[in-house]
């Protein structure tokens, strides 16, 4: 009763129920690259840094941080923070969490942290991280890594984990829901604003939308453009949208004779009417691309929109001796909203310039196998820049090692620039990345059709909900009437 009284005094009341499109698969913050897991686990664990919706890094468990030199980062930690079980948060926690993710190769995020040489504590509230080579994107990656208590084991701990986050973990019904309860002793005053948060996993949009309209849930993510009108017309429902940190990108198989020729790739790009895709198919809920990476990320440089010029496309195909070209366009079934519709539109557009497109809509696992085997010309995919930093995207897709089993991209110039762009100095990074983007924009190893827009629908009872560009649904500062 006393605690309830305290909660009331702070204005903390009610329960928020969210409906997320993607099922969560783990409670271990180091063992996923899932957007829904990042969202849910952010409530239970605090990372060292948060990233704001305008791509600025903000203090969470680290009060400040800076690069001492190209291979050393220093973090000063927040004092007086404790885990849900009462134990204090100290530098030991950071040392444990970072060494665990580096050393346990089974963890999905392990590969990112391989560059860490050592993690040293300096008293209870400061940590120095040294790296084997420059690791400028470390702060960005740390926004996605919740800090664990040093006593955390493996299996058993993650059945009922404790963190320092604004909510305590209560229960997880696999594939269905996660229940969380407010952490009354959270370090940030006035947070959280509700007593309870339940996250339900509802992959089908129409079901998700129906639950929202019926008032069963209060917020849904990944709304499709075609659903917006219906939702806007529903009393008590608000629709929010924001430019997402996601670029759609369909990559070519660069080892294939047909699309190896840059003239062919250019022709494909010229034949696609991106305006039609954005305006007619996505009803304006997308933005034209002006660079391989979306605005807001370090290095983004406006290189101007890709033109639509079927005449020139035909001419280029003729020059390349490919006037009777057939392309295999592989899709991962049901992964991206409206992908089949867009792929059919693209097939029709390419048909206009004499390119026949075979759409192959395959099971996700099969599609990935085909990609590894190189059995495709064009592969439908998107990239959400989750750590708010393009280093991962560049490293994965445009280094020889990263792209070996994907697109077979290999360009020593780009490889060099990616390595040089890993330093902590943002000015250097900006300049190197701008240069990479220029090369890619010119070579067109991928088709960049549009930047996505993230659409959410919420109950008008919610206050202070922020439509995030990274698709996270964060509820600790959200209240409910």
């Amino acid at each position, binding site marked *: 009763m006393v605690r309830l009284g305290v909660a009331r005094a702070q204005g903390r009341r009610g329960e928020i129920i969210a409906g997320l499109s993607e099922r969560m698969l783990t409670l271990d913050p180091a063992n996923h690259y899932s957007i829904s897991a990042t969202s849910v686990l952010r409530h239970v664990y605090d990372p060292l840094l948060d990233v704001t919706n305008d791509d600025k890094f903000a203090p969470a468990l680290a009060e400040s941080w800076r690069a001492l030199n190209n291979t050393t980062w220093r973090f000063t930690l927040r004092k007086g923070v404790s885990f849900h079980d009462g134990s204090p948060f100290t530098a030991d926690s950071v040392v444990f969490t970072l060494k665990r993710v580096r050393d346990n190769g089974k963890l999905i995020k392990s590969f990112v942290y391989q560059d860490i040489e050592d993690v040293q504590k300096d008293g209870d509230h400061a940590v120095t991280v040294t790296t084997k080579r420059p690791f400028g994107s470390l702060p960005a990656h740390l926004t996605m890594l919740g800090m664990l208590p040093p006593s955390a084991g493996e299996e058993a701990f993650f059945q009922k984990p404790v963190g320092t986050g604004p909510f305590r973990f209560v229960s997880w019904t696999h594939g269905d829901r996660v229940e969380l309860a407010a952490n009354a002793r959270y370090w940030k005053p006035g947070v959280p604003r509700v007593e309870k948060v339940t996250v339900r996993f509802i992959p089908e*949009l*129409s079901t998700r*939308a129906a639950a929202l309209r019926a008032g069963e849930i209060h917020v849904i993510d990944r709304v*499709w453009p*075609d*659903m917006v*009108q*219906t939702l806007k017309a529903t009393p008590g429902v608000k629709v929010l949208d924001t430019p997402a940190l996601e670029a759609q990108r369909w990559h070519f198989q660069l080892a294939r004779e047909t699309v190896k020729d840059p003239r062919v790739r250019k022709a494909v790009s010229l034949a696609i009417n991106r305006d*039609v895709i954005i305006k*007619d*198919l996505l009803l304006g809920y997308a933005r034209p691309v002006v660079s391989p990476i979306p605005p807001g990320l370090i290095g983004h440089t406006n290189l101007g929109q890709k033109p639509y010029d079927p005449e020139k496309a035909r001419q280029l195909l003729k020059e390349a001796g490919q006037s009777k070209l057939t392309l295999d366009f592989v899709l991962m*079934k*049901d992964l991206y909203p*409206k992908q*089949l*519709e867009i*792929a*059919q*539109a693209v*097939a*029709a557009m390419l048909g206009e310039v004499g390119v026949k497109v*075979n*759409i*192959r*809509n395959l*099971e996700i696992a*099969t599609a990935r196998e085909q990609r590894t085997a190189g059995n495709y010309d064009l592969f439908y995919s998107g990239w959400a820049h989750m750590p708010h930093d393009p280093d991962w995207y560049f490293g994965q897709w445009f280094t020889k090692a990263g792209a070996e089993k994907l697109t077979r991209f290999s360009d020593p110039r780009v490889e060099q620039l990616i390595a040089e762009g890993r330093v902590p100095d943002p000015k250097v990074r900006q300049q190197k990345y701008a240069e990479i983007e220029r090369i890619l924009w010119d070579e067109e190893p991928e088709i960049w059709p549009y930047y996505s827009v993230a659409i959410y629908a919420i109950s008008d009872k919610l206050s202070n909900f922020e439509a995030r560009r990274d698709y996270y649904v964060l509820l600790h500062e959200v209240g409910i009437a």
Partner: protein
Amino acid sequence: MSRLRRYPMAAVGGLILGAVILAAAVAPLLAPADPIKPSFGKRLQPPRLLGGASPYLLGTDNLGRDILARLLYGGRVSLALATSAVVLAAAVGVTVGLVAGVLGGRVDDAIMRVADVQLAFPVIMLAIAIVAVVGTSAGALVSVLALSGWVLYARTVRASVLTIRQLDYVEAARTLGASDLRIILLHILPNTLAPILVIGSSQFATMVLLESGLSFLGLGVQPPQPSWGAMLAEGRDYLSNAWWLATVPGVAISLVVLGANLLGDGLRDLLDPRLRQ
């Protein structure tokens, strides 16, 4: 014809099925527009049939394509696949059934056990597995569908053969020195035809459903080629704001299944000698 009149349901079924097949067959003449070419400015127009202002009788789909045109061309695909599958299943099933019935013994045992194994697999599961391996060509689809259907014929024909084999006229033919093959083709096969026809027509309904199911799951005909199941799948996402996308192919599938079932039921009664007067 007079007997047909006694089974009006068979006639109705036959008419429905006949009309749909005819419409699909002459699709190029009937279709008001290209079924594949998108018209982006004309997406999701409601059917004129229900008072919509658009010039499209059944409306347009999510890429602005005429749904009537897609329905007709999709029908060609769905019906052709189903028909081929029924014919292939019947050919295999009847042959195997005749062999099992006539030869008997170990051959019979072996064939019937294979049939049992086949029946033990859920058809959709089997289809998904096969299509995942060999791909979604028309040949593969027909084979998958036929694979799910041959057992029914094999068992029925085998049972008929076992009965007919004992009959006097078969004995007589054998005494006169007719070869096995001659007896099978001229004396036994014609007498098993009635049940085969009945199974064939009701199985046609199952095949249309199955093909639609596979296309719905994305394992059938690949877009932009229309097929009823694929149209249904694409329309599902638009149920709340453009219901006609899924409803139109859904009605078409229901009609064909209804027609084929009515026809099958009627044929069974019509061809059953015990019901003859």
